[in-house]
């Protein structure tokens, strides 16, 4: 009896104690409207045309009606706090989410006007056109040569050994790795340094001559010097490929990209020229994020 009455008193008293000073509105509390993106999300004759894309993991919705165009041969950076859906969105572009059982993708995703998620679509061909580099360097436990030759062999890109050699050499050259490894192409790739491994993964990806290269935080496992080399490489690659890069580092986005897209809790908040995003962001959430108020 006693305990009951005392609880009741506590419950009654609680609201009176909770008098708090009125604070300014926190940026996290901003209510975002679905499917609304400020800035310049659309482009003429885009490589990727993405409309009202939604991604579900089981019951929960990770991506909420995002529409975006990715232009040919641009470098676009996806930034945003952890868990905002930028990697999930990236993995929709070459259907890497397919291997996750509970993941469903809705909306229109077109690559050169063709539906990416058409059930009749050949995923092998799609991934040959849209390559991907992962967060952690993941060279196969094979020789350096075999790593780069892996894709060309699968797709039958070389008819002779000499052609394959040429592809391997030019890919390693493009990845800025040739001079470092030309004398030890038979060495295990897993014995290289982290930065070399990541550049090898990039060489491996461009060996199949993709049109688009997706990069999921490619430098997050690398030291600053290796990062600088990879960023240099991205700048060079941007001449021949469309590059979509997810990054946690705003400096990196500023250094390598033409356009920057800011993601927040599954929404695409703002897309603009990179220089504009980092100097005069249009949306208050973007502004708070790049000024380091949260994230």
């Amino acid at each position: 009896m006693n305990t009951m009455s005392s609880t009741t008193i506590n419950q009654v008293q609680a609201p009176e104690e909770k008098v708090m000073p009125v604070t300014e509105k926190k940026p996290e509390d901003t209510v975002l409207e679905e499917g609304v993106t400020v800035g310049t999300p659309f482009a003429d004759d885009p490589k990727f045309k993405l409309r009202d894309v939604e991604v579900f993991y089981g019951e929960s919705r990770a991506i909420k009606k995002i529409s975006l165009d990715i232009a040919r041969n641009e470098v676009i950076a996806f930034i945003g706090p952890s868990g905002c859906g930028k990697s999930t969105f990236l993995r929709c572009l070459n259907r890497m989410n397919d291997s996750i059982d509970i993941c469903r993708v809705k909306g229109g995703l077109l690559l050169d006007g063709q539906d990416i998620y058409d059930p009749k679509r050949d995923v092998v061909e799609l991934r040959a056109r849209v390559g991907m580099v992962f967060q952690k360097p993941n060279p196969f436990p094979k020789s350096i040569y075999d790593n780069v030759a892996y894709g060309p062999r699968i797709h039958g890109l070389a008819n002779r050994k000499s052609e394959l050699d040429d592809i391997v050499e030019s890919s390693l050259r493009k990845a800025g790795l040739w001079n470092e490894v030309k004398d030890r192409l038979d060495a295990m790739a897993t014995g290289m340094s982290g930065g070399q491994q990541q550049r090898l993964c990039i060489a491996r990806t461009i060996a199949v001559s993709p049109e688009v290269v997706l990069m999921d935080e490619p430098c997050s496992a690398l030291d600053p010097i290796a990062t600088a080399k990879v960023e240099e490489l991205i700048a060079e690659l941007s001449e021949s490929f469309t590059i979509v890069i997810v990054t946690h580092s705003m400096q990196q986005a500023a250094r390598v990209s033409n356009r920057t897209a800011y993601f927040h809790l599954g929404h695409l908040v703002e897309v603009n020229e990179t220089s504009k995003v980092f100097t005069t962001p249009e949306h208050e959430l973007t502004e708070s994020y790049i000024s380091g108020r949260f994230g």
Partner: protein
Amino acid sequence: MQPLNLLLLTMVLAVVAYGLGYARSRALAMPLGGVRHLKSLPGYYGVRAAIWCGVPALIILALWAAFEGKVIQSIVVGTLPETMIPDSAGEASLLMSKIGNVANGSLPPGFVEEPVAKAAELLQALQVQSKIYMTGLVVAVALLAGFLGWIRIRPLLNAREQVEAVLRWFFFACAGVAVLTTVGIVFSVVFETIRFFEQVPFLEFFFGTSWSPQLALRTDQVGSEGAFGMIPLFTGTLLISFIAMLIAAPVGLMSAIYLSEYANKRVRSIVKPLLEMLAGIPTVVYGFFAALTVAPFISDLASAIGVEASSQSALAAGLVMGIMIIPFVSSLSDDVINAVPQSLRDGSLALGATQSETMKKVIFPAALPGIMGGLLLAVSRAIGETMIVVMAAGLAANLTANPLETVTTVTVQIVTLLVGDQEFDSAKTLAAFALGAMLFIATLLLNVIALKIVRKYREQYD
């Protein structure tokens, strides 16, 4: 008191010591302001007191129980008159069992010689005395050591470290049991094998092509010469194991690939336990399945296509054994395939490789060492399997590579050599040890070879 009761009593004392130690450490801690002023938690002081109380007492108990019989026996034999002192081990044990029978009342004293009856009385008296001494000593040591352990509990005493040290030795001893047992088995096999080779020439055993381990009871008996050539047995073993692996390796590996790469979670959660159940079926059941269903089926099938086949065949045993060891291959391979990092799969898929290409070119090489391990385990299981072979392949030691004929294996012969009444110094029984030693060496070599292969071809991932 009987040793078992004494063991229980010591344990009870140890538990009491735990409680007292716990209570004393708390009592010491309270005036200081709580348990945190002790070097260790009260539980550690309790365990320490229990160790002090129990361990020395149990060691004494074990030693006493181990040597009691020998000591009493030597005293009893010492009192016998010069003429009755036994001069061989066999006689000594006969005499002792006679004395023992008189002592426990199953043989009336009037039926035996005077000194034996006396010795029996002495034996009985000594046994009673020994029990009393043992009980007294063990209880005294437990109480004394327990008291010492208890009284020396102080807040600054680091009981935790002492308990950890004792536990360390305890775990070491447990690990030592397995190692020592293996060493013991190896030595006993080696010594018996040496004795075997004193009776049977080396070359005959290793290169003889006929196996009939019969020894003549009379010198003029027909077929008095036994033959101890191990070649037919080893070819039989290899033949059956080979057939079994021919079934188990591909089926097991492919089902592992299906389960780990293709099956969804639900299918996997149902199929995997079902598959593993195959390993839980007793081999006797497999044996009569092989003997009553598979073997007749094979012989019918063979005669239908005009090939001669005996009713028991290596093929029947091998097929059923293959089914039995599928789970060894599949379960282990499934585990190692799952252990290959997802990032390697992603890397391959992102380059446009299909699932099967990824499997073949990336996952399989990376998982190879583990898969080899699984296959090896399956092979050693196949070599060691006895029951299925006895029932389905027969006992005749034929030197043949024809799987439709009846063959026998090393393990089966070991069983038949040792079943029934045997003397343990004839070449026939000693042959079992020699075969066992060969089997041991064979599996050892297999392991070494597999390790070499694994080292050479492994693709390390990190």
